[in-house]
């Protein structure tokens, strides 16, 4: 027994090294799981507060640019208001709005920490549980898709960026079928699609929209355009490069998407899986 203790004491640093690496390995595995909530992450309060302070300084510098982009979005939305549309036949007017019900609500938020350089990038937003942000909500901005909420604290939330090797977005190319878009891991302006079958005709500069299948994001939201595509010999699927319409380097104001119908589809699906 005494020899054992002596041995351990003599090799204490090696033992400590192994223990520390095991702890780190455990943390790596825990943080890399997509949907599992990590107890300690950047939505914790101290880290969030520090980043919020930093954000206040930074946002002051970009105030003018931000104003311009918000004004542009306001102008676009104003154009979609009923009063800016002219009725074609003035004797006959259909109020289409009563045929529809709202499916999405939006919570505006600001990005207080943004990454684009890594393989798995995350964002931190300044809205949390207090603002009705919940896990698995989609995040969009005026120019396209941003990501999905991974973790929420009282005042902040962590978002898995579209620029993350684990993120998938359901999209369709032009009017084609539903495929999934993913990120290759090195170019912040480009994403890829690898499962569009070859019988569908596509061409350069075709627009890519969200499919809205999974209710994370509203459907028909523009994501990007086809930059390049390739059909290798003997393959049945295109390899498509999509130029993202969203500039991830200059991300400031975003909207968290609260889907009012997803709860229903989710319960229906889980019923099927349970059977």
């Amino acid at each position, binding site marked *: 027994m005494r020899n054992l203790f002596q041995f351990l004491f003599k090799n204490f640093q090696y033992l400590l090294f192994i223990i*520390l690496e095991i702890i*780190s*390995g455990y*943390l790596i*595995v825990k943080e890399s799981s997509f949907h599992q909530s990590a107890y*300690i992450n950047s939505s914790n309060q101290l880290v969030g507060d520090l980043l919020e302070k930093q954000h206040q300084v930074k946002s002051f510098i970009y105030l003018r640019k931000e104003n311009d982009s918000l004004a542009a979005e306001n102008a676009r939305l104003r154009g979609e208001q009923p009063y800016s549309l002219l009725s074609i036949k003035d004797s006959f007017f259909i109020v289409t709005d009563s045929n529809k019900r709202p499916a999405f609500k939006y919570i505006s938020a600001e990005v207080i920490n943004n990454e684009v*350089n890594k393989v798995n990038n*995350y964002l931190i937003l300044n809205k949390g549980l207090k603002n009705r942000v919940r896990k698995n909500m989609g995040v969009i901005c005026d120019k396209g898709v941003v990501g999905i909420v991974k973790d929420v604290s009282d005042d902040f939330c*962590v978002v898995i960026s579209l620029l993350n090797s684990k993120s998938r977005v359901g999209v369709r190319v032009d009017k084609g079928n539903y495929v999934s878009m993913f990120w290759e891991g090195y170019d912040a302006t480009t994403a890829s699609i690898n499962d569009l079958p070859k019988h569908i005709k596509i061409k350069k500069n075709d627009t890519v929209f969200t499919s809205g299948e999974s209710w994370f994001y509203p459907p028909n939201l523009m994501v990007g355009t086809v930059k390049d595509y390739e059909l290798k010999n003997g393959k049945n699927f295109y390899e498509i490069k999509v130029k993202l319409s969203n500039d991830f380097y200059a991300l400031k104001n975003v909207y968290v998407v609260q889907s009012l119908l997803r709860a229903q589809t989710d319960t229906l699906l889980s019923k099927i899986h349970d059977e």
Partner: protein
Amino acid sequence: MSNIYIRLVIRFIFFLLFQVLVLNNIELGGLMNLYYYPLFVLLLPLRMPQWISLLLSFVLGYSVGLFSNSSGLHAFSTVIMAFVRPFVIQIIFPKADGSDTEEISLEQSGFVNFILYAFILIFIHHFFLFIIEVWSFTKFYFTILKIFTSSIVSTSLIILSEYLFWRKRIK
């Protein structure tokens, strides 16, 4: 003796804040990531017991990672770096016994030796950091290139700052 520990704590906080508040915001494209905080491990006193430096590097890596959801990743690579450090010191500075030189510094060890010392350890740190981050061989050459370019950029930053700011500390 307590003097050393106070200095370590101040340096720890400074390196942490500088990394997460300044360097994490600098974007040089996907190939180059700037990491300055390994300098903390490089500058640890020679006489310090190895278990303290292992623990300190774990805490530093963990705290840096907290800001980007990768605490395990940074802790892992920083601890490996601290673990390898004594062996690298033995090879590059065979005469350093820790009695006269308190820390490895640019002035006392010479320019070439210090660059070698810094580059080897930072390369080890970046190697594990990026390899584990990708965790696949699909983009192997890109990752290797990223490890090399990032190590070179980080080492240059460390050498530059060591040259400008930390020189006055000695004597």
